[in-house]
């Protein structure tokens, strides 16, 4: 009887110290996250007027949301484009980083160097540098013109041309080809956004024991088969992590057009209500996409333990 009471006391004490450990997070979350979230939700539902004395907001229901969906000419179009890009980009990053992780997990000379190069974008493609990079596109545009004038036709351009003429007439195929060409052209963007994903895949690949592959090889399994029968299921938990990370990373990147528009409304036109409404719509869409896609993917995920 007494012993049990003491045990309960210990558990209680541990619970209290647990709360003490996460106390900074709780305070920060309440003050810097919940409160602003509610405030921006409230703003999105009202007409915010700025005067020298401060802010005045008048509640007017879902007017801002209506404006975003029905009246504003750009928002819906930008949002749909963004979602389309998100789909293509996520797929490309997932496949690319998986493929690169498979290669980087093999043994070859200079592996340390190649790994270092592939994780370099984690540092270099963050924050303002990416933004500056895009502003710098002008210079590369200049180079492109020079190259075109220099009359050298590359083999890829020829192939692209052939494929496009061959598929003309069938609009879905043309569209598909265009998407593929876009992805191939944007391979640099994909390579510099998949640093962390490669790392996560690698960490998964390293936990697969060699004995599994050996056993499979003895049973007559080719390496192609063991890729799909062993590597893929074993790494599937990482698929989920990477999917969520890629989507979040994509939606928060600094050159997202929707984000640009929201920031513009906020800083240029001082229309806080409308900006908040758009931000909330965007946020809700992202959450829904993450939810649906991870639900779909979690059907494939296989936990070994």
């Amino acid at each position: 009887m007494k012993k049990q009471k003491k045990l309960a006391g210990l558990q209680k004490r541990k619970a209290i110290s647990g709360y003490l450990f996460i106390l900074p997070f709780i305070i920060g979350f309440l003050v810097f996250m919940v409160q602003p979230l509610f405030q921006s939700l409230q703003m999105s539902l009202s007409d915010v007027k700025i005067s020298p004395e401060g802010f005045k907001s008048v509640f007017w229901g879902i007017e801002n949301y209506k404006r975003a969906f029905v009246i504003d000419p750009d928002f819906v179009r930008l949002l749909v484009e963004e979602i389309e890009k998100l789909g293509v980009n996520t797929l490309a990053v997932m496949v690319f980083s998986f493929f690169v992780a498979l290669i980087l997990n093999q043994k070859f000379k200079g592996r340390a160097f190649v790994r270092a190069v592939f994780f370099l974008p984690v540092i270099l493609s963050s924050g303002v540098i990416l933004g500056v990079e895009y502003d710098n596109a002008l210079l590369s545009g200049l180079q492109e013109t020079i190259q075109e004038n220099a009359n050298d036709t590359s083999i890829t351009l020829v192939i692209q041309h052939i494929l496009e003429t061959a598929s003309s007439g069938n609009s879905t195929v043309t569209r598909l080809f265009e998407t593929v060409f876009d992805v191939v052209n944007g391979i640099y963007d994909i390579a510099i956004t998949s640093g962390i994903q490669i790392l996560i895949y690698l960490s998964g690949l390293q936990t697969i024991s060699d004995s599994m592959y050996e056993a499979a090889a003895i049973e007559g399994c080719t390496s192609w088969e063991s890729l799909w029968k062993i590597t893929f299921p074993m790494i599937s938990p990482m698929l989920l992590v990477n999917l969520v990370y890629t989507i979040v990373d994509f939606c928060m990147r600094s050159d997202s057009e929707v984000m640009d528009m929201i920031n513009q409304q906020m800083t240029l036109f001082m229309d806080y209500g409308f900006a908040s409404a758009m931000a909330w719509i965007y946020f809700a869409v992202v959450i829904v996409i993450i939810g649906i896609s991870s639900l779909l993917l979690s059907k494939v995920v296989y936990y070994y333990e």
Partner: protein
Amino acid sequence: MNKAATKTRKENDFWERNRKSEGYLLKKTAMDIGIRIVRAILLFGLCFLILQPILNKVLISIMREGDLYDPLVVNVPRHVTAINYQLAAMCMDYAKTFGNTLLISLTIALLQIAVCTLVGYGFARFKFPLKGFWFACVLLVIVVPPQTIATSLHLHFRFFDILGIFKLLTGSTLNLRSSVVPYYLMSAGCMGLKNGLYIFLIRQYFRNIPFDLEEAAYVDGCGTLKTFLRIMLPDAKPILTSCFLFAFVWQWTDGFYSSMFLGNIKLLSTSLQRLGDQVGTYYKEVLQVQGGASVGYTNCIIATGTLMVITPLLVLYLFAQKGFVESLSSSGIKM
């Protein structure tokens, strides 16, 4: 003589073995070599793809303005000069901003990782009511785009107050907009740049440390805090280093939080964003050139500035590459 003999014997051996295996060995070796060649080409191409922009920037940054428009100059400059660096350094006020950035990034990263370690440890090692709920909140923090709450936070710091205490004492709320305090406060509350991610990673690491270690410490009379400091922290060094490095580097290049919550302090990231305009102003007002600097040259200066911002990070990466990569890849991130 002897060597040649062994060599021929080896070759004979190979063909002998190939014959015995009915051509299988030859096929396998050829396949192996083929795969190696394809892999080498692929990796070379991809590495070049990633490194090319940096190399390009390095070359552009040592070109004179004339070389930029010279059709004969593609990559290798004709006139090597350091004047671009001088101009970029002057426009960015490099020495001062560098010091500021170093100080801010170091202190912020230290603070963030210290707090995130506490929180991550709390989530990994203790059972308490509503734990699932709070962890869901951490995941929410990862997912919410900071832009959603930025405006309201901005206002929050403009009229800052804690439960009305300051208003009671001084008669007005505090204006923290032009100081660095807001971001330190946010970092102390785990709401800085990507802090949710650090909590997640650190928790993941602590979860994998065997519980026996902790039990033994408790049995020997160690308190909760002492166990954490003496037993757990030394064990978690690798993940803490890599999280610290990430925090440092991401803070270094961050533009959003820096411009929103760090007031008017001059940082490398924010001055890099303004560099183009700065160069234009310098040309117009100091050198009295009508129309400012040309577009090409402005871009050249921006490339130089970018290089100057990332060089310290590159050096750090060279020395601490293991810290960035190894611990993360061994922590086994799962959901």
